[in-house]
């Protein structure tokens, strides 16, 4: 409905503008940014958080006077619900571009939904900013219109290996590692990085267990992991399965060091498990307590607007929205091609979009933002950044 009203208003403005003298002031047409989020379906909880972050960014941009390069045009967010389904993501991306008039798209949480929707944007020659998906191949296909804020999944391995070295230097024994991951593109891409990097550092992978997202019973996997007697368990899954897995492991009386991945692990639901998750590590793209002015400002604004604390996926969505607006500003145009060119050149080391833990937000020749991860640990029932020591808010708590 509101889309039709907007179009009607645009037509009215166009007619009015054509009969008024050229020097008459007119309201600048909004910059339409399309956002693909799962508001329903299996990942609805994350979608709601992502949307809040996108909306917060848009509110801030519009309150600061809109996009200067476009005569103060306001940003209009066109929201599409992907229903957590790849095929819906694809059709909604098409709808946003061809019928909604979006000049930039962003989204769409899971890799499974992001990949088809970004291919639609590529076909329509519209820039698409990937906010959260980590499957490596997203920025390895020489696509011309796809940019990614989030890191590649396999990079986690590098940070994890550095962190293992760090723990070993502090006296922890980590010679055998087991992998437990969901069998979709997300789990496969991250574990591929682990499998490539760990043996090279003399760390043996003694077990590898996969499971489907949404499994109600992981007791057999837990038994096999226990049989491997690994010192450290690397988990790559969404939060639903992690709760089931951790309980199954506890029932088996198997208490290895644990390291989970990303927003599927550093999630408030996990804290409800209490002592089960105490001391567990997580490699994640951003943490609430990261020491950067843009990050602190974001956390304050988010808490003031919504009451609860933002997660890593919210920070990425927020950064992506700001990047889109800043690119349109730099291009001084609503033309998708010019915005794409501006995205290729953008370099942000300060300002609201610089909240992620890298020095400069910029996209390389494949559209990839070079950003690393931080390590969190659950200490006294809270997620705390413990590594790298430069940004840590508390020292790491070692097992006895």
């Amino acid at each position, binding site marked *: 409905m509101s889309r039709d009203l907007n179009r009607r208003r645009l037509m009215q403005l166009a007619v009015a503008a054509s009969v008024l003298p050229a020097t008459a002031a007119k309201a600048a047409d909004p910059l339409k940014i399309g956002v693909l989020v799962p508001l*329903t379906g299996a990942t609805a909880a994350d979608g709601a958080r992502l949307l809040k972050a996108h909306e917060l960014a848009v509110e801030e941009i519009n309150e600061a006077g809109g996009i200067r390069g476009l005569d103060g045009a306001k940003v209009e967010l066109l929201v599409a619900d992907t229903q957590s389904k790849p095929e819906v993501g694809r059709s909604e991306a098409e709808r946003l571009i061809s019928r909604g008039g979006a000049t930039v798209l962003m989204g769409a949480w899971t890799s499974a939904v992001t990949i088809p929707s970004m291919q639609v944007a590529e076909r329509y020659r519209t820039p698409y900013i990937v906010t959260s998906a980590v499957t490596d191949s997203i920025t390895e296909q020489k696509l011309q219109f796809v940019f990614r804020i989030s890191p590649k999944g396999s990079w986690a391995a590098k940070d994890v290996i550095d962190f293992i070295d760090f723990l070993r230097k502090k006296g922890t024994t980590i010679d055998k590692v087991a992998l437990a991951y969901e069998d979709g593109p997300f789990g496969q891409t991250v574990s591929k990085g682990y499998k490539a990097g760990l043996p090279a550092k003399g760390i043996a992978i003694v077990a590898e267990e996969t499971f489907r997202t949404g499994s109600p019973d992981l007791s057999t996997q837990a038994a*096999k992991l226990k049989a491997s007697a690994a010192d450290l368990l690397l988990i790559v899954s969404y939060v639903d399965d992690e*709760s089931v897995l951790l309980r199954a492991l506890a029932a088996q009386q198997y208490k290895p060091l644990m390291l989970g991945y990303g927003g599927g692990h550093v999630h408030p639901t996990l804290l409800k498990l209490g002592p089960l998750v105490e001391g567990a590590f997580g490699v994640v793209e951003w943490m609430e307590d990261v020491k950067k002015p843009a990050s602190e400002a974001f956390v304050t604004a988010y808490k003031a607007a919504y009451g609860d604390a933002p997660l890593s996926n919210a920070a990425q969505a927020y950064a992506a929205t700001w990047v889109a607006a800043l690119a349109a500003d730099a291009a001084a145009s609503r033309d998708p091609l010019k915005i794409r060119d501006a995205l290729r050149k953008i370099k942000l080391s300060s300002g609201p979009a610089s909240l992620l833990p890298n020095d400069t937000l910029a996209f390389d020749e494949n559209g990839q933002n070079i950003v690393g991860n931080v390590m969190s640990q659950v200490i006294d029932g809270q997620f705390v950044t413990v590594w790298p020591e430069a940004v840590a808010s508390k020292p790491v708590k070692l097992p006895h």
Partner: protein
Amino acid sequence: MTFGIFLQAVGGGLANAAIYALIAVGLTLVFGVMRIINFAHGEFLMIAMYGGYFAWSLLGIDPALAILLVTPLLALTGMLLYSTVIRFALKVPEINQMAVTLGLSLLLQHLALVFFTGDNMLVTQPRATAGVVLGPVVIQVTHLIACGASLLLLGILYLVLKRTDFGLVMRAVAQSRDGAALSGIDISAVYKWAMAVGIGTLGVTGPLLVSILYANPHVGALFTLKAFVIVIVGGLGSFGGVLIGALIVGLAESIAGAWLSASIAAAVPFAILILVLLLRPEGLMNRSLAR
């Protein structure tokens, strides 16, 4: 796969089978008596799970005891469902009936999303992480309780169906609706009770499952498809069929998961479904259609 892991898979598979059987029995009962396929079956399980969760978080009741609260509520919901929706759905073509229950399924999922948000709600109890050790096999206490309760309820249901007049009347209506009507049986009352029992059984499984898993709007959908596979493999309308079907699906899935990969294990129930539909489409326990 070592023998110990094999036994663990068998143990886990048997425990799962009992739980699946209890979920599927309501579906087959409703179909057997009313010839209606309830696609919203999983969503009533979801409601029961939320019921179990709230009984624990708001009233401090152990989910296993919450069964006594949630089951009557679900049974009442089943009756209400009959009076308001299913009663009218029985008069329309089968395709429309399926659309009605499918629509109901979506409606309930989205209502849950609106009222409870998409976040997972976990029941945290000390026994949620305890395990019972039987040689090389460790069964989580919550799974054991759910398995035991399921078997108990299945036994009770069997006795009710085979030994009581109530069960006799239901079986009569399942066999021939018109014949039962001619014998003076009040068909709509039987239908109402069939729905009450069919949905009420979920009131037992729900609180037990919520201790094992979590409550969220789409958790029911995890089980709906599996329940359908079990019911079709065993034979629509057959109580014994549910037991056989659940046993086959639960064990096959668990052993395949231990031996092969998770993705293959997820395909196994459907491979079995295809085999059964090709070789014995009426289901394993139903009398052969070839007369």
